């Protein structure tokens, strides 16, 4: 059995050996890394597992085989380098399954890790996506844009398409590595990858695994302006590059009810502040929005702008159309893309305010998010039509 050691000789011994499972753990503080290793040790046989990580191995886990990788540039998401490393190490060690654990993975239940790996080992799934149980009003960009848009466009029911923990089959890892390689060669080492979209594009099997709660790592820059532009812009770009794929009719994947329900909303969000931001934007950004949105949407926004914060709601179908229109404008470069995503922020805040009001009224957050996603699905023909004939809808 190989020993855990930062000494290069030991590492080379580990590199020569084979293992069924390769676990790639992102950079994290030593105590968190120790907890991840404890969890891994609890559910996997150390003989059949190799851990690749940029963290310094500790002597406590000498029975685990580790490989030292380079430090990732991101502290909150998986980077293209992570996918490239995963595929490379999986090939070298002939791994049958790869587990990618993002920053903050110590908060994951050991059984969740087992579930992700088993989906690949036993169910022959190519991509195992975790389904997190997050507190209310956490991961709102995902709930408002990423999940509904991915579900409608790629017919995928993955609730967290931008998951930071993944279970991969070797061929899925290879596929993601190819995409990551092309991104890296274009000097976009910090670009985001969309594994769900890639799995759909490659017609690989995919399943969602209930993993319970998890502490979501936050980007270093907490400013909503930069987060929304980065994540949404990346998804819009990916959708643009796969236009030929998603315009074909696809059968949506079957609905799978997860057992873990999030707690009821506490309704403490700063709704008044977000509604005020939207109203200020309506008074000043109308000219820019009119370049992107059709008159119908502008009229509905006008109606929203006169609502007070307590009764504020963003209709689901209006929100779906707004995102679709912004997606089309992103593709057509109607205005500068930075400006476009900046102009989306007040609308997103309006959706968040409406969502908090809805959940405060007693409707579970998940039910509202599902309703939004259903509205996106129902309006997909609008997106396809606008994508193909953009000028037809401007008047």
């Amino acid at each position, binding site marked *: 059995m190989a020993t855990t050691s930062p000494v290069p000789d030991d590492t080379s011994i580990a590199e020569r050996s084979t293992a069924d499972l390769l676990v790639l753990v992102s950079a994290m503080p030593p105590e968190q890394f120790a907890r991840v290793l404890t969890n891994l040790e609890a559910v996997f046989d150390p003989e059949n597992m190799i851990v690749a990580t940029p963290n310094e191995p500790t002597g406590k886990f000498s029975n685990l085989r580790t490989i030292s990788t380079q430090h990732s540039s991101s502290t909150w998401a998986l980077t293209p380098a992570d996918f490239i490393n995963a595929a490379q190490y999986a090939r070298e060690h002939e791994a049958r399954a790869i587990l990618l654990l993002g920053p903050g993975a110590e908060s994951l239940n050991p059984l969740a890790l087992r579930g992700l790996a088993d989906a690949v080992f036993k169910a022959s799934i190519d991509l195992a996506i975790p389904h997190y149980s997050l507190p209310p009003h956490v991961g709102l960009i995902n709930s408002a844009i990423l999940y509904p848009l991915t579900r409608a466009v790629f017919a995928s029911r993955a609730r967290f398409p931008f998951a930071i923990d993944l279970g991969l089959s070797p061929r899925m890892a290879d596929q993601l590595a190819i995409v990551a390689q092309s991104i890296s060669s274009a000097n976009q080492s910090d670009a985001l990858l969309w594994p769900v979209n890639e799995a759909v594009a490659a017609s690989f099997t995919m399943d969602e695994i209930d993993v319970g709660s998890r502490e979501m790592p936050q980007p270093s820059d907490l400013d909503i302006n930069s987060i929304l532009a980065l994540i949404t812009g990346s998804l819009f770009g990916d959708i*643009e590059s796969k236009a030929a794929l998603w315009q074909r009719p696809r059968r949506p994947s079957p609905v799978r009810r997860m057992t873990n329900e999030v707690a009821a909303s506490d309704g403490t*969000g700063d709704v008044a502040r977000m509604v005020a*931001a939207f109203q200020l934007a309506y008074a000043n950004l109308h000219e820019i929005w009119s370049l992107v949105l059709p008159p119908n949407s502008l009229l509905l926004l006008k109606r929203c702008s006169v609502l007070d914060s307590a009764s504020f709601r963003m209709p689901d179908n209006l929100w779906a159309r707004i995102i679709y229109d912004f997606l089309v404008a992103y593709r057509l470069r109607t205005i500068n893309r930075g400006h476009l995503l900046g102009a989306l922020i007040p609308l997103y805040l309006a959706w968040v305010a409406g969502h908090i009001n809805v959940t405060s009224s007693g409707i579970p957050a998940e039910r509202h998010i599902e309703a939004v996603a259903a509205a996106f699905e129902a309006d997909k023909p609008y997106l396809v039509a606008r994508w193909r004939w953009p000028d037809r809808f401007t008047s």
Partner: protein
Amino acid sequence: MLSMIDNAIQQADMNTPAAPVSYDNASIWQHMSAALHQSLDRVLTQLIAVLPGLLAFVVALAIFSLAGMLISWLMRQLLGWVKFDSRVTHSIKSDWAPSSSPSELIARAMFWGCVLLGLIIGVSAFDTSYATGAALPISLLPYLTHAVGAALLLIAGILIARFLARSVLISAINAQIQYARILSLGVKWLVLVLTAAMVLDHLQVGGNVVELAFGILFGGIVLTLALAVGLGSRDLVSRSLESRVEHVGERTNIPDDASTASRTIRHF
């Protein structure tokens, strides 16, 4: 006797004052006429010297434009025949708008390339012809070239002004600044005033007056903006400074949910 009469008449003519006046009028008209004829000759000569160049310019532009249209049409047919668009779309995995498909872009590039070539050749022919008549005072052509440069400056200035105005407006709105529109308009007019001054300077119109007026106007706008922002956000600045003093080292620049809501709302 007759000779005496002739002498008497000649002396009488020499003493008569009216005769030289009628002689001078005729001379001026002759001189004016001669001057006009010479001027007309000069202008016609000059025009004749420039005309072939002008004609060459027009002919070169027309021929190359027609050639460009033909080449562009041929290129469209050829690229359509080899299914160039679908091959490119497949290879780089990107969707193209129908109005800007790869073959359309190539065809347009060919057309405008030909037009540009025609322009260069035409201008070159015109330049040669102009050089031969350069001794004659044609001041319009250099001014026209300045005007083209000024027009380009103006277009660039307007584009930059619009871009910056939008950037400022969106950033200010997202920072929930109430006077975002004023700020945006201020930036827009600053750039436009700067552009106008540069254009007039390029056209050599106004001289020092433009520089002086620009300085006054630019300074005025900056002062107005400073006063508007300073007076409008006095409370905001003082609150921000107090907050900084009280919470040194804490993050204070989260614009959307910096209050208690940030503890319950997390966008990612």
